[in-house]
């Protein structure tokens, strides 16, 4: 099913068709991220739920073992949502949550730029905390120099948490 057909189905007035579409979100590519993110804040709660539920399915499928390029492409598209003030804060925050699950370490410098924003600093910190590899550690440490002092304890919390569980290499680095 091409993207246009898919988007029609996920906006269907029939809850069953919307449901079927969100469950099959794995069949779409990263170009579905932006339109789904738009629909995720639809005033129609049913459509918003379907789009909100489709995004994680799309993201998690992209990060399945062996699909590293897909994960990188998907994380990059999700990051565009997080970076854009065109989307509601909850959608941007949800994007960062998914980014933390699937992003390769290469995207960390871009994610780290959100540490400079008042509104998404905390969500960006939590996303980076989850991404294995030195770039994340460096970004969190660099944040100690570039963020308000009141945020430093949050960054130190992430650095501490990363020491609790041995993190494996990032998605990209694990190849």
């Amino acid at each position, binding site marked *: 099913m091409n993207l246009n057909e898919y988007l029609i189905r996920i906006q269907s007035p029939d809850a069953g068709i919307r449901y079927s579409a969100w469950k099959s979100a794995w069949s779409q590519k990263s170009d579905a991220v932006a339109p789904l993110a738009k629909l995720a804040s639809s005033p129609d709660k049913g459509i918003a*739920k379907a789009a909100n539920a489709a995004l994680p399915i799309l993201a998690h499928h992209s990060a399945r073992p062996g699909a590293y390029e897909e994960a990188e492409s998907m994380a990059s598209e999700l990051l565009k949502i997080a970076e854009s003030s065109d989307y509601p804060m909850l959608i941007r*925050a949800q994007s960062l949550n998914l980014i933390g699950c699937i992003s390769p370490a290469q995207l960390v410098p871009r994610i780290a730029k959100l540490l400079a924003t008042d509104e998404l600093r905390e969500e960006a910190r939590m996303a980076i*905390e*989850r*991404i294995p590899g030195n770039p994340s550690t460096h970004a969190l440490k660099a944040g100690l120099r570039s963020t308000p002092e009141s945020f430093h304890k949050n960054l130190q*919390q992430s650095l501490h948490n990363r020491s609790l*569980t041995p993190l494996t290499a990032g998605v990209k680095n694990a190849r």
Partner: protein
Amino acid sequence: MSEQKSISRREFIKSTSITTAIVGMPTVIPSGVISMPGRIAPNDRIIYAHIGVGGMGASHVVPDAAALCDVDSKRLAEIAKNVKGTPMLCKDYREILDRKDIDAVTIGTPDHWHAIMTVHACQAGKDVYSEKPTCRTIQEGQAMINAAQHNKRIVQIGAQGRSKKSHRAVCQYIRNGQIGKVNHVEVWHENNWTGGWGTETTPPENLDWDMWIGPARWRPYNTDYAPFNFRWVMDFGGGFIRDRGNHVLSIVMWAMNSDHTGPVSVEATGDPQKEGLWDTPVTMDVKWEFKNPDWTLTWSQPGPKHTFPGSDEALPWGAQYYGDRGTLIQSGGDGYGDTEKKALEYEPPADGYHPYLDPSPVEDATERHRENWRRCIRTREKTIMPIETGHRVITLAVIANISYLLGRKLNWHPVHERFIADEEANRMIAQPYRAPYHF
């Protein structure tokens, strides 16, 4: 507990004019127990405080509690009426942990608070009774174990099925080979709840919503999140598999002698509700595979709803054990439920396996479970449901939910507690906490 603390406790008791016949927890005090660091002397009263006093949390409140904590001030005031004197009332659990005179705390909060509160309580030198489910993530369970062991704390997880005679009978029957080698255990449960959209609105004045969310990811208040319905939200509750699953799977792991290990794979599927606020799957099917010995555990919602032999009453939840010489049904898994007559009447030989049951004379399993905790606070022995076991049991539900969310079968290393060859799944072993909450 330090010597200093024991003296403080005695002084505290004197200051409150409570000398003999202390109202509170009548426990059997082993002879020879003396006050020393980490132990409570036989004549000392255990000072309790309660964190989270709604639902099951309310059932733990003792009449002479020193302090009560809840983020809902209305509920807090209501429960305080059941306590003598003037207990400290607060909405921040850290105020309770700062009190040096408090020995032990119960935690009856929503699930996403259990781990961090248990860890902090252990670090503060308190013994802990924490409600099920044990925790939300693998890392949380590991942190709870570390905190309990490092600080030599007594922790009981509120999976009180381990203190119920009929569930003990299941364990005894299976472990003594009465149905032969068990190759499959089938757990069934009614569906997760469905609901509407609730109302996204300003939280009621009596509820501190930010504190209610605590370490979880922030989201706006909705009338259909709290109380109780957080169970149907993945970020908070995780559905029946993590809720009552902690009960029924606890009995299965006990009966299958698997408290020390875990499965090697998990595969979960489910169907969430098409409309409405909640995101847990309404129906769910899970399959875990165990090795050495080889057996399979399944979870089905709604599942087949078995009946006891000779009865046509469908049991709403439970487990059926399939052995090469017979079967056995267990209904429920918490403080209620039952099993077949053959298991209830079975007496193992003297050299057979006799599962421990706390000797408390009370019949109610939940109260016996609490009595076991109180006894262990004094003896410093392991509880019937220690954190190590609680972690192993809830691991089943935690990794099942990860498999469901990721939409794929996962291979699990029960010793290393890591997924095999799945980077994303391994990232979900931990979940970042919202500041300022951390272990």
